[in-house]
């Protein structure tokens, strides 16, 4: 990207009028980058502000500022969404836009289209949920302070960069920003040795995967002569590579790097350990946010850039999807630790998303977007329950720790049951429609065997969710009739309760009225739009 920036500068500087050389940078549509900037500036301000605080910050301050920042970022994406979709007005606000449709800015480094904005909003929601879950958790674990929230926001910045990336290098920068923040998040709980192990493990393996990704990017650059998605796409449309070894190697290495982040089998080995060891709200973010960002990366690289090269990468994706779905579900069953179970089940979910991606069609993108959005709520809510049940020390995640939850905390248990059933894909929950759309996409792309494997693995994972549900119904006694002592009742803090409540309500509402979300998921199409150089007058224009 840097190279292309300088190339830009060189081109623009050719238009010098007098003797002194103006090195004009690429024009940037700041409004388009607003969500990114709000998150970034918000993170930095939080950090700066907290270091000036003399006394301890008021209870919950950082939580609510983080929530406000994330909500602000999500809202700031709406005008862009309206512009991309070509709306004339946004609620009561008459837009009167000169340009509509997707566009590219910052010298072609960033692509603003339906998909990038959709994922941006999903990431912001993920931040809100994780921050709400973290509120009481951090006080409970004596980890109060702004660090968690700052890292959360920074990793979201990385995620948004990935979602908006229009260039392999930008994608890599986003991935690294995201990952480095999450490495620290995973290892944040200094009192738990598992947390530190988790952080270190994630870091070392993550560094490996980043290296793979970067190496792959280098190969792709060598093979296609560009790192820009649009340029590569045009190159692929015009040139038939005969000696394509370099290209294939590059593609595979990029796939490895991204598959590692969504924890697809066989690049999943880190995820159970890391999910288990990391502080539970951080796990929620990892499962929701990191996965969403990585899916965005996969969609942009494979479905957008290399879509007419699909015959080579589709089979690989096919196998990854099958392995992830089946092994994720099967390995989850033998676990006894709920966090590990959810980790394995999230591997299985990754397989479903890969199934949607391998369809390489509009339906596939819709299904992937829908799945990611719904999954964010389901998994954040589930780990939210685990946050509360983990109790002080964040160590009570065995199946036996959930016994009698139905009696001691009926609402909490009820929410968890609903979220688990949604993950299992039971009708009238959003999870069902997510699976349904992914299967429709696969069937549409003539991958019926894949759809069959998906459904069978859904049944296998249903067993896993049932195991957790059954555990909650048992009181630890013989027949589950007598009451659990009141002392076993868990306190549900307000913020976490709110987060879980949001997740449950959204899961049910989208389950009953899927059109609400489906409508947007359909509009969330990625677009390859060439960056339009600003004209000599220097005004900011963007192609539509």
């Amino acid at each position, binding site marked *: 990207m840097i190279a292309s920036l300088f190339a830009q500068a060189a081109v623009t500087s050719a238009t010098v009028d007098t003797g002194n050389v103006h090195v004009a940078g690429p024009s940037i549509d700041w409004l388009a980058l607003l969500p990114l900037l709000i998150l970034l500036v918000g993170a930095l301000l939080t950090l700066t502000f907290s270091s000036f605080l003399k006394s301890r910050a008021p209870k919950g301050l950082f939580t609510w500022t983080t929530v406000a920042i994330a909500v602000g970022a999500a809202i700031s994406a709406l005008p862009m969404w309206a512009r991309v979709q070509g709306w004339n007005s946004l609620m009561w606000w008459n837009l009167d836009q000169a340009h509509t449709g997707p566009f590219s800015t910052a010298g072609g480094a960033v692509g603003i289209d339906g998909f990038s904005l959709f994922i941006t909003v999903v990431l912001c929601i993920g931040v809100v949920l994780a921050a709400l879950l973290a509120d009481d958790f951090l006080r409970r674990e004596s980890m109060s302070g702004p660090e968690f929230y700052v890292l959360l926001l920074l990793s979201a910045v990385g995620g948004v960069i990935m979602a908006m990336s229009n260039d392999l290098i930008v994608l890599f920068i986003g991935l690294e920003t995201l990952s480095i923040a999450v490495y620290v998040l995973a290892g944040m709980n200094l009192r738990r040795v598992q947390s530190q192990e988790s952080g270190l493990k994630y870091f070392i393996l993550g560094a490996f995967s980043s290296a793979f990704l970067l190496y792959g990017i280098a190969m792709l650059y060598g093979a296609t002569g560009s790192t820009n998605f649009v340029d590569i796409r045009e190159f692929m449309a015009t040139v038939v590579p005969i000696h394509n070894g370099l290209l294939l190697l590059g593609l595979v290495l990029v796939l490895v790097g991204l598959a590692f982040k969504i924890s697809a089998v066989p690049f999943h080995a880190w995820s159970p350990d890391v999910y288990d060891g990391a502080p539970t709200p951080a796990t929620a973010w990892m499962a929701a946010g990191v996965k969403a960002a990585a899916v965005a990366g996969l969609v942009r690289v494979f479905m957008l850039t290399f879509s007419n090269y699909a015959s080579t990468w589709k089979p690989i994706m096919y196998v990854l999807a099958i392995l992830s779905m089946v092994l994720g579900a099967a390995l989850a069953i033998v676990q006894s630790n709920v966090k590990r179970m959810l980790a394995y089940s999230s591997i299985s979910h990754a397989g479903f998303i890969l199934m949607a991606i391998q369809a390489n069609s509009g339906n596939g993108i819709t299904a992937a977007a829908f799945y990611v959005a719904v999954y964010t709520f389901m998994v954040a809510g589930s780990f939210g329950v685990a946050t509360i049940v983990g109790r002080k020390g964040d160590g009570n995640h065995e199946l036996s720790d959930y016994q009698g939850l139905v009696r001691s905390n009926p609402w909490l248990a009820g929410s968890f049951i609903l979220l688990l059933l949604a993950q299992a894909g039971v*009708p009238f929950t959003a999870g*069902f429609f997510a699976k349904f759309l992914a*299967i429709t996409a696969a069937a549409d792309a003539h991958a019926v065997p894949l759809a069959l494997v998906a459904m069978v693995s859904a049944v296998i994972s249903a067993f896993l969710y049932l195991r957790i549900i059954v555990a909650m119904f048992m009181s630890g006694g013989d027949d589950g009739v007598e009451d659990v002592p009141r002392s076993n009742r868990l306190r549900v803090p307000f913020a976490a309760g709110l987060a879980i409540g949001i997740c449950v309500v959204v899961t049910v509402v989208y389950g009953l009225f899927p*059109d609400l979300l489906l409508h947007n998921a359909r509009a969330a199409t990625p677009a390859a739009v060439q960056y339009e150089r600003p004209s000599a007058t220097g005004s900011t224009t963007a192609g539509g």
Partner: protein
Amino acid sequence: MSASILSAVFASEGAATFPILPALIFVPLIGAVLIALMPKSRPELSRQMAIITGLLTGVLSIALLVEFKTGDAGFQFVVQQTWVQSLDIKFFLGVDGISLFLVVLTGILFPIALFAAKPEHSPKGYYAWLTLLMAGCMGAFLSLDLFLFFLMFEVTLVPLYMLIGKWGHGRRVYAATKFFLYTMLGSAFMLVSIVTLAVVAGAGDKGGVSFDFTKIIATHNLATSTGRWLFLGMAIAFAVKVPSFPFHTWLPDAHTEAPTAGSIDLAGILLKLGTYGFLRYGLELFPEATVWFAPVMLTLATIGVVYGGIVAAMQRNLKRLIAYSSVAHMGFALMGLFALNVEGIEGSVLQMINHGISTGALFILLGFLYTRRHTYEISQLKGIGKVAPVFAGIFTLVMLSSIGVPGLNGFVGEFLILLGTFMAHRWWAVVAATGVIIAALYLLWAYQRVFQGEPDEANKSFPDLKISEKLVMVPLIGLIIFLGIYPKPVLDRIAPSVKRVVTRLEVEVQGFHEPITRNGADLLHITESSHAMNGEHGLGVAANGQEANK
């Protein structure tokens, strides 16, 4: 308060044409929500609410029966409402002669199950799940959108899972999980089939995706092999639900551990989802594949009849015994369907209803037995007929109906099925006919061990039925006798829709003719003679058929 809400709902809907089909789904659904909102401290409220809901739905289903236009083969009371625009998924309900009686059966059997058994603990959840189950069953029988059908088919899983898993006996969690996973595995294949069909058939606008049953039926662009694969996917789901022979192993466990109401509804209603599914989403959707698979399905059904009977005879647990007898009886229902003629299919629909009534009644009686003796083990029961004559009497009647003794309801269905199958595939009918004898064997043998002889110490104080328990049995006994003597009203309503299905098979499948062996005989004439309880007529027809076949 709750009643007033319901009446308010009704008043708002009580326009010129009362939307009776949505009401059949939403009344129990709203009831379930209301029960869930009841205070836990007053369990009697939730029971009253459940009974009100159940009775109201029952009355609605009877009203549907009354309003139903006899002789109309198509769908009546159709309601359509778009749900997911882009995929052409609709809230699309309708009822024809085939689904009518299953809906009525659901409407009758659920309230009876509510009266017949009380939960041992936590009544609120129990009644909420039970009414939700009722809503799911109604929805599955009424929906004409493949997607909606699948949803409803799946929705029935969770309530029954909870009922078995929480209110069941001994190994309830094992049984509930097994039931859930088996059925869900079957549905997994069905979902893939449904989705593929919706995509491949392209019945929507401009060849787009559509889940509309009537639209898909109207398109004819399904390749032969595609149709067969899709049929297979659906068949697995339904075969698990029926349950047909190699997929039946979940049923005995589920029945043995289920609470009484769970068993009644499972045997009475939920198993019918399987045979009903075969009829509506197998025979009607995939005519070619149906004809092609018919011998296989017939063979499985016949094995089910004989095998189910033999295994039932070996059982030591009464509930397990009845569960295996269900395998045999549902085998008959499946056999009738794949005879692919009007007699067989009619008999099969009738058998579904009869089995619901008889087996439902048997499970109610076993529930009474369990509340008194807390066991289903045959070896621990002895001489109950001496101490509880009314109980024994009713049990005898229901048992005879289950065996298929002429004059009681079970006979009519099984006779028509055997007749239909005989005309289509003679030897299968011959083998399956032994199933009737085996049924007499296992039921009479069990009866003998449980009810006859001198009661021992444990059984001496076995109290006879209370008046409330007798009252519960009255409607079922009435139906058993009525349908045995005069099934014409039922057959009259079933026949047109069944003829529609068979005609469609003949039109759609090249070279297929309805397997019949008589010349232009009026169908209703035959069926009437068969339930005139006169052995001569019945035999005469069979012999007639044999002659014509030569």
